[in-house]
């Protein structure tokens, strides 16, 4: 986040009842408002950079619903997002609400079944919120709560420690800070390409948490690993102990499904060992006739027993390698529980253009990338972003796979992104031309082979972030205010000084914030702070085919 102590999520907004609004000049000022809020415990704030509006809120994404909203960013105090304790956890502000023995906590503001000694009123700084475990009295065994069991007044909650360094299963969820390999090499930072050039770019793989130079397991290896800072050793596994069975970080026990499957069948632990075409499954521990890495050792928590159908790797259904040398693997026919529909229909949709009409509500193409190049989250998934745009809630919106759609009548197709910091974005799609062009597109005789996007002069491509032309009138014909001027609209977010590389010269339209709708400017109309500009699209450039490829699937 660009504000210390906060996690930023772009395009997000929370609907907290307990909220105050301020007019500020910078995001840092908004953070100050949150830090000094006196009327409630401020856990997050929302900032709209363009309008320089600031809302402080008593809630965060863990307790309130998060909505989409363009031009806003949600900043949440890290302390209120942590679900682990440092030391004895007097500063624990997480949401665990069950005790060691599984009893549900009593609300701190309730007097039933136990009359509490610690209340939100008597301990206003202890954040005795809802029925979450807290440690208002500095108990040496950590956070606790009064329980809803009349026979047990209170119990500890066994909240995991933030400093615990162990892995569960093969450590794909390891988020610890070990940064030395098993033979003592120091790990290379993931965001560095030296000494080893690699393809694990933290910004394009945000869901892999490739932070600093910490050991991670982004590819389902047997254990976390890292590139090393030694030029002669490209990468090595890290030696991180496995969490004990009693560890609080052990994943919740799954409820095994034996006779039928729900969703993708990840919990299937039955004994079907035949594929849908009748082939016998190969034992997971065998390497003939199919060699593979889905071994019980590499997937220690997936119960790859004998040759039973399983789904260790988030496939659509349980499957297995087959004993037929000519058929590597196949899905198994496991009955679905109840009347549940199969997960996302795998049928490839008809060929569709990479453009949308109107607001794109009827767009049914297969684009799954946002305007900034982020990968879309599957509509059926709730991670990294929890949401309510499900197939069930929007049955006519064709919310399949992670394809861009517009279920809620927004101005263009969009999707939730796989980047935890960016809730949603519009998709990398253009509006279909309204009618065939009657003129020939300009022919570029000497297309640039330069890898940098050339600054565009009289036209724009994409969202026009590189537009450097002279247009200085908005779509409504209003003249733009100079970027360096503070009248009629005072602003500080987008000035030539704050964004020196964005071409904020004179009063020409620009797109310093990558707005999906293209270049804009502050206007000279005091009733309209800012507006978009009308700039035409350009002709041929390298890598931009006029006939859009169909981009068919490979399997």
């Amino acid at each position, binding site marked *: 986040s660009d504000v210390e102590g906060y996690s930023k999520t772009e395009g997000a907004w929370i609907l907290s009842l307990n909220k105050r609004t301020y007019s500020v000049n910078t995001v840092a000022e908004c953070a100050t408002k949150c830090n000094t809020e006196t009327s409630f415990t401020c856990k997050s704030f929302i900032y709209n950079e363009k309008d320089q509006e600031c809302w402080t809120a008593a809630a965060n994404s863990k307790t309130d619903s998060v909505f989409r909203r363009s031009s806003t960013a949600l900043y949440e105090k890290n302390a209120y997002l942590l679900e682990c304790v440092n030391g004895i956890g007097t500063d624990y502000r997480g949401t665990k609400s069950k005790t060691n023995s599984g009893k549900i906590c009593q609300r701190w503001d309730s007097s039933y079944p136990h009359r509490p000694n610690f209340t939100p009123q008597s301990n206003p700084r202890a954040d005795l919120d809802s029925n979450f475990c807290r440690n208002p009295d500095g108990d040496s065994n950590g956070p606790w709560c009064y329980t809803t069991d009349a026979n047990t007044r209170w119990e500890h909650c066994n909240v995991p420690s933030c400093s615990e360094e162990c892995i569960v299963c093969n450590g794909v969820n390891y988020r610890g800070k070990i940064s030395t390999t098993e033979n003592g090499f120091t790990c290379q930072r993931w965001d560095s*390409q030296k000494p080893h*050039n*690699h*393809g*694990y*770019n933290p910004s*394009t*793989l945000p869901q892999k948490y490739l932070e600093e130079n910490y050991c991670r397991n*982004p*590819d389902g290896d047997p254990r976390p690993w890292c590139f090393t800072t030694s030029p002669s050793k*490209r*990468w090595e596994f890290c030696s991180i102990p496995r969490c004990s069975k009693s560890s609080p970080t052990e994943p919740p026990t799954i409820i095994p499904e034996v006779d039928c499957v729900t969703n993708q069948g990840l919990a299937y632990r039955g004994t079907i060992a035949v594929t849908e075409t009748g082939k016998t499954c190969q034992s997971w521990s065998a390497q003939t006739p*199919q*060699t*593979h*890495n889905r071994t019980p050792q590499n997937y220690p928590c997936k119960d790859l027993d004998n040759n039973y159908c399983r789904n260790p790797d988030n496939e659509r259904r349980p499957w297995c390698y087959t004993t037929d040398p000519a058929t*590597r*693997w196949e899905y198994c026919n496991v009955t679905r529980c109840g009347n549940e529909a199969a997960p996302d229909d795998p049928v490839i949709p008809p*060929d569709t253009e990479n453009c949308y009409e109107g607001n794109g509500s009827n767009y049914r193409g297969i684009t799954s*990338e946002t305007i900034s*190049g982020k990968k879309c989250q599957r509509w059926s998934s709730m991670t990294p972003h929890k949401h309510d745009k499900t197939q069930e809630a929007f049955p006519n919106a064709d919310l399949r796979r992670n394809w861009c759609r517009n279920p809620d009548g927004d101005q263009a197709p969009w999707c939730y992104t796989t980047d935890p910091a960016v809730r949603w974005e519009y998709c*990398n799609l253009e509006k279909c031309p309204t009618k065939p062009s009657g003129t020939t*597109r300009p*022919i*570029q*005789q*000497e*297309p640039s*082979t330069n*890898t*940098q*996007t050339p600054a565009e002069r009289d036209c724009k*491509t*994409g969202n026009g972030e590189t537009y450097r032309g002279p247009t200085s009138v908005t779509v409504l014909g209003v003249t733009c205010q100079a970027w360096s001027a503070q009248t009629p609209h005072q602003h500080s977010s987008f000035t030539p000084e704050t964004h020196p590389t964005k071409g904020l010269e004179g009063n020409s339209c620009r797109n310093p914030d990558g707005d999906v709708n293209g270049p804009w400017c502050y206007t000279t109309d005091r009733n309209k702070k800012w507006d978009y500009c009308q700039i035409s699209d350009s002709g*041929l*450039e*390298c*890598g*931009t*085919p*006029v*006939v*859009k*490829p*169909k*981009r*068919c*699937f*490979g*399997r």
Partner: protein
Amino acid sequence: IVGGCVSKPHSWPWQISLRTSNGIHFCGGTLIHPQWVLTATHCLERSSRPSAYKVLLGVHTELATEPSKQEMRLEKIVKEPNGADIALLKLERPALINEKVQPACLPEKDYIVPSGTECYVTGWGETQGTGGDGTLKETGFPVIENRVCNRPAYLNGRVKDHEMCAGNIEGGTDSCQGDSGGPLVCYAQNRFVVQGVTSWGLGCANAMKPGVYARVSKFVDWIDRTIKTN
């Protein structure tokens, strides 16, 4: 291309067909400049003379009966000096850039395509019975990081730093003989960038044997220098 599908005509306008002087297709290539084509060095083993080859641009079928066809002889062949499987072909004259003939973009120097990025290969090569023979086919699959690709069960350390892997681990779709020299393009920031030149593989479309491509970003300086000095 094994698996995949027949492409939409002229939707990969940088794809060229490298042919013998009597018109037999044997390799692909990528137009990266009106007068320059990127291909694989191993496509040029049959002769070092430019006159032994010709390049077709703007075609969709191997028969090349399209009116949009531009046929060029070669003026020069420049092979990568350190023996990498990448070469440049200078055409006898600049191609006419239009909706059916258009260069692909070059990547940034030393850019590494992130693991898992979906990229696309095209070509008129072997289909191994998966259909579409004689027309330009395409397929898409993810880039596989060299670290993963060099695992013993995959390509077991055979992949060099100046190469990259792409494919589906479960097999079924891949580039194949006759696609060599052609483009592996990845879509980023609203344009297709040629990140790879089809080079080699252990068979085609076999499980755990992804295709290997010359990593273009490692040769950007050489490409720029060659074009400037020639």
